[in-house]
């Protein structure tokens, strides 16, 4: 990490009366990053974003943007621009006037403004829409206008509050990719607020997971998925099976795991999180795709155990099986890619489950 992050949030607290929305948040966001604030509704994401924008002041702590403390600096003087959840398109102005709204104050001639506006509209694929008024636009187009209106200001940071949540699934997925590509081509830092873990994984360079006003983990999408720091993060990001386990210290510095539902396995020292005493382990996590149903006699895995298929959900490309493993009451989810010539295993079938030391997620 560099010495000078574009955003530096230091021990920020925020209370609304009795509600403590943020409880000591520390966060550094690098220049040019696509950074996401991810968490369930009400965890304080919007509050944190609005604090960066200048619409809320921290109760205590500091927000530093580009090295400058933002204390007391109003939103109109900050190098940030926001894409609002409702898009906040001015209903009395045309698309062009919306996009050019913030330029009116800069010392630019009419023709310069018109050119900037056209460039911004081109960036979001809205060439020729300049003369329309706000109510003649679809949801996706409004979202693009809001984005162009922010980008045309050439801010150092673009703040986006659940910008895609109002769009239907297909459009949302398309916009996720477009937004990501746009961010990479302009190179401006984007901070995205979302409650959709999949969206955060697809779009972000790094993600901060928030629960109840506190940051649980800040990591790249891969790290977040593969090494969630605790069970809460693990179950919020994707699907995670939790199984009872006991651990013993082994001579090489690794761990010996006894998992009643699966069997025994040795975890190497390198794969073991630091300062995690064996005695503190009572549950481990396994992702559905890290368990495999061994269909053929000839299929083998590092470790094998047995279970009974209880149900199956067919998703087209994937099938999610609910499997009853021994010594555990809860059903375990196993996902299998559907390949040619393989039919769905019927309920009640006894299957062999393949897994390995790499399948296991340890929580500190």
């Amino acid at each position, binding site marked *: 990490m560099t010495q000078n992050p574009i955003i530096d949030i230091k021990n920020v607290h925020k209370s609304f009366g009795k509600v403590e929305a943020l409880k000591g948040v520390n966060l550094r966001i690098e220049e040019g990053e696509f950074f996401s604030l991810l968490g369930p509704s009400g965890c304080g994401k919007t509050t944190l974003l609005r604090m960066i924008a200048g619409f809320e002041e921290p109760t205590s702590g500091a927000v530093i943007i580009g090295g400058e403390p933002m204390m007391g600096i109003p*939103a*109109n003087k900050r190098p940030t621009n*926001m894409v*609002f*959840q409702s898009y906040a398109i*001015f209903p*009395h102005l045309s698309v062009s006037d919306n996009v050019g*709204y913030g330029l009116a104050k*800069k010392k630019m001639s009419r023709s310069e403004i018109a050119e900037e506006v056209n460039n911004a509209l081109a960036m979001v694929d809205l060439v020729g829409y300049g003369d329309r008024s706000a109510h003649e636009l679809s949801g996706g187009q409004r979202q693009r206008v809001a984005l162009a209106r922010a980008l045309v200001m050439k801010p150092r940071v673009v703040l986006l509050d659940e910008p895609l949540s109002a769009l239907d699934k297909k459009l949302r997925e398309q916009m996720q990719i477009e937004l990501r590509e746009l961010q990479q081509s302009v190179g401006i830092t984007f901070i995205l607020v979302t409650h959709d873990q999949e969206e955060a994984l697809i779009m972000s360079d790094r993600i901060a997971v928030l629960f109840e006003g506190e940051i649980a983990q800040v990591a790249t999408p891969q790290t977040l998925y593969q090494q969630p720091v605790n069970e809460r993060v693990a179950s919020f990001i994707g699907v995670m099976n939790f199984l009872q386990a006991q651990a013993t210290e082994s001579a090489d510095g690794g761990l010996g795991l006894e998992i009643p539902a699966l069997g025994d396995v040795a975890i190497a020292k390198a794969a073991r999180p630091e300062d995690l005493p064996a005695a503190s382990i009572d549950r481990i996590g396994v992702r559905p795709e890290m368990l495999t149903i061994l269909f053929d006699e000839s299929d083998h895995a590092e470790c094998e155990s047995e279970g009974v298929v209880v149900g199956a959900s067919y998703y087209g490309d994937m099938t999610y099986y609910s499997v009853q493993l021994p010594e555990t009451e809860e059903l375990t989810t196993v996902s299998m890619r559907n390949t040619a010539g393989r039919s769905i295993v019927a309920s009640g079938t006894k299957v062999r489950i393949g897994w390995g030391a790499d399948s296991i997620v340890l929580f500190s």
Partner: protein
Amino acid sequence: MISPPLLYALIMLAAPLAMVVTFSFWSQNYLDLDTTITLKNYKEAWSKPIYRVLILRSLNISIMVTLVTVLLAFPMAYFLSFRVKRNKALWLFLITIPFWTSYLLRVFLWKVILGYNGVLNSALMGLGIIDEPMTFILYNLNAVVITLAHAWAPFAILPIFVSLERIDRSLLEAAEDLGDGPFRRFFRVTLPLAMPGVIASTLIVMIPTVGDFITPKLVGGTDGLMISNMIQIQFGKANNAPLGAALAIASMVIVGSVSLVIFIAGRWFRGRAQ
């Protein structure tokens, strides 16, 4: 088939209007009506200075009353909408309290307040701020403006309040986010979006004010007489209903045109607020 609301509108609105229009093309021969169609009344209304003076004065007064009322109502509505966080309903209720007394009573109260030996003069003299009673505050234009501005206040506040309430607050934040300070933001976003309410208030206050005849009569003195007082005289004492009708139609057309201009100007301003 004629639906009941249409029938109601016809009987209550269209029929009296049609009668007034018809009357205005007749003429009065001492005691009986001459029903031959003539433009005589309109010619008289147009050529006699007294009528022009009265119509212009009525317009003048109603524009002043409207200006004062709307300019005072806007900050009140703004305060209610943006500053009051809780109990908005209670505040609205308080604003309507003056309506609990009859209009006449309120006009008389203003007489008591503004009169030669009234509350205001006594108080100011008692405090030694003035030596003798001020006379320019009653029985003239000022008194009419003050009384009417007070009477219309709730009617003007409510439409503006409603249009301010309807402004999505994130629009104001967006304006600020895009670089506007409070002042620019007000003129570029708040005011244009509140314009429908402002126009509604303007028309609600202005149109009935032109036609008011009680207030001028009670507090206006001779300087404060308005066209409606003259219309009333024509229908009554002067016994010239056709002329009264022509005056009524003429002032209606003028008020209608002015309203239309205000309406269009408001639309134009809203669209141009860049």
